[in-house]
């Protein structure tokens, strides 16, 4: 029995990581209706940037965040303004296919730069440290990851609904033309949104890299997890995204408990069940 409870708790904590994968997707979809197929590969890019930073400077991956987060934000701003802004419009094909092409480029560039060998970020003692709660040993790293996820989502929520920047995001999302009339340059606003999304992605990538080994080919899988969390939670709802991540995480750990080969499959099946039963997700944003 305790094993099952343990699986659920581990799943909840894992859900924090998935929510971090999803938050960036959710943010850019919310602001500019863009679905970034390269999102997963950008998570992996962040992990590799973390790897380079830690090996070159000999610092802890958490310290590497000080470099990787601004670097990813910068990359986000540049690809949004230099590339992705040109794809936005009523036609869904250009953004889809351009980000798909970006995904292939990123994957192969990482392969070229870092080879296909699995890599890992070394988190030191934090990786193995655990605290005992009610007879269960909870890893400090998963707990920390979950805590960071909650903090990031609370931060995004606050930014979105209580700051001038968030007001700009919502205005551009509502009506690009009218927002432009108010003096907002939408190209810049979109660039900022992507920068913010990739800053979150940087955190996700570093935490992923400490938790498990990674190689250039696994981006697609991370995109799917993030996407599933977004849809399960309901489009456009950040806290829903966290809930979606948790549900996905729990489904996976329970699946793995039944048979190790079923971990990821169980997550996909949970997603398809939610899609069948509640096509708008469990916590859809109330439309105005």
């Amino acid at each position, binding site marked *: 029995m305790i094993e099952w409870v343990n699986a659920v708790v581990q799943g909840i904590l894992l859900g924090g990581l998935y929510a971090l994968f999803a938050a960036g997707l959710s943010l850019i979809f919310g602001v500019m209706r*863009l*679905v970034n*197929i390269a999102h997963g590969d950008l998570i992996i890019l962040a992990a590799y940037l973390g790897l380079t930073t830690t090996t070159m400077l000999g610092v802890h991956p958490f310290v590497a965040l000080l470099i990787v987060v601004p670097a990813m934000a910068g990359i986000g701003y540049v690809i949004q303004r230099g*590339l992705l802004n*040109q*794809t936005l419009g009523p*036609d*869904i*094909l*250009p*953004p*889809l*296919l*351009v980000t*798909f*092409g*970006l*995904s*292939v*480029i990123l*994957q*192969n*560039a990482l*392969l*070229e730069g870092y080879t296909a060998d699995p890599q890992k970020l070394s988190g030191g003692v934090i990786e193995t440290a655990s605290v005992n709660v009610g007879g269960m040993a909870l890893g400090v790293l998963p707990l920390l990851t979950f805590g960071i996820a909650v903090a990031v989502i609370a931060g995004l929520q606050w930014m979105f609904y209580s700051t001038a920047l968030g007001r700009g995001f919502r205005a551009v999302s509502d009506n690009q033309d009218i927002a432009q009339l108010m003096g907002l340059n939408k190209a810049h606003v979109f660039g900022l949104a992507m920068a913010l999304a990739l800053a979150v992605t940087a955190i996700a990538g570093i935490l992923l890299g400490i938790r498990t080994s990674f190689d250039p080919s696994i981006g*697609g*899988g991370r*995109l*799917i997890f993030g*996407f*599933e969390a977004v*849809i399960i939670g309901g489009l456009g709802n950040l806290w829903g995204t966290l809930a979606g991540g948790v549900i996905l995480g729990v489904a996976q750990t329970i699946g793995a408990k039944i048979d190790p*080969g*079923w971990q*990821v*499959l169980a997550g*996909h*099946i949970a*997603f*398809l069940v939610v*899609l*069948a039963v509640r*096509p708008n997700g469990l916590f859809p944003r109330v439309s105005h």
Partner: protein
Amino acid sequence: MSAPIVTRATRASRNAMVIGAVALIILAAAPWWAGRADMRLMSEIFLYLSLACLWNLMAGYAGLVSVGQQAFVGFGGYMLFALTIWGGLHPLVAIPLGGVLAAILSIPIATLIFRLKGAYFAIGTWVVAEVFRLSFAQVGALGGGSGSSLPVGIVKSLAASRSGREALSYWLALGSAVVIIGAVYLFLRSRRGLALTAIRDSEVAASGLGIDIWRTKLEVYVVTSAFTAVIGGLIFLQKLRISPDAAFSVNDWTAFVIFIVVIGGIGTLEGPIIGTLLFFLLRETLADFGTIYLLVLGAVAIIVMLKAPKGVWGLVRDRFDLELFPLSYRVRQQPNQKGP
């Protein structure tokens, strides 16, 4: 006054038809003039051409942008193995049967993922493909995660000699490309094809003119899934070995296909043909450069999408008003007659 005449064929299309027929005869005779390696390459070209035509019908005409067609390629491949090994069927029976099974399976899948719109639909199809991959990896009898080979007895049942088998699998690939291009062409020429084109241009006006959009898209999805599975069967009949990662590879069966269609010209029948030729030209030229080739391919696709979204064929057509496959209608007024 005498009535205007409605025609469809153009001079270019008649010429293209003649050239196409001649090319087909030459290609069909390849076992007598081409080498073994060339025939393998040409088979691969025909199979990719088939996949590209199918994906183009789905994405370019029905607006169903899927990045999960590898689900059906792999399914068709696995059905070939399962039905011949377990069911004792002849491969040439197993492959079309795999198509039928794919069609049946695609209906419940469609009812689920049609709830997702646009790019979310795309990722939803990918999830489905992953479910397929992980599920087949669980089937121990088919080799689980490491896959299995087609038994020698089954291979030999195709033809006794090696050259006979190679000719047969070449003709199957060529034949399937011809059948699929022909079927897509005839479909687009029919009133249903006209309806599909109308949906692409304006869904709201299409439904107001009596077109059931959901049903039309479902039909396209089911038919392309079935054909894609048949092609999958043929692909793995050539490879003789299958594994979940190879069968459900997003790069091999979807990324390349998308690049082909985008570069050639999405939403045109000619596009996939030109795209396939360009793709293989690029691949054979850059084959020695490894991953660089994929980098270049990705970059080319992005540039085409941004600078010439209608692809190479779109550029040609805009410039010369050409149509090799006569889909459009032309109304010709009698020469010495005044317009109303």
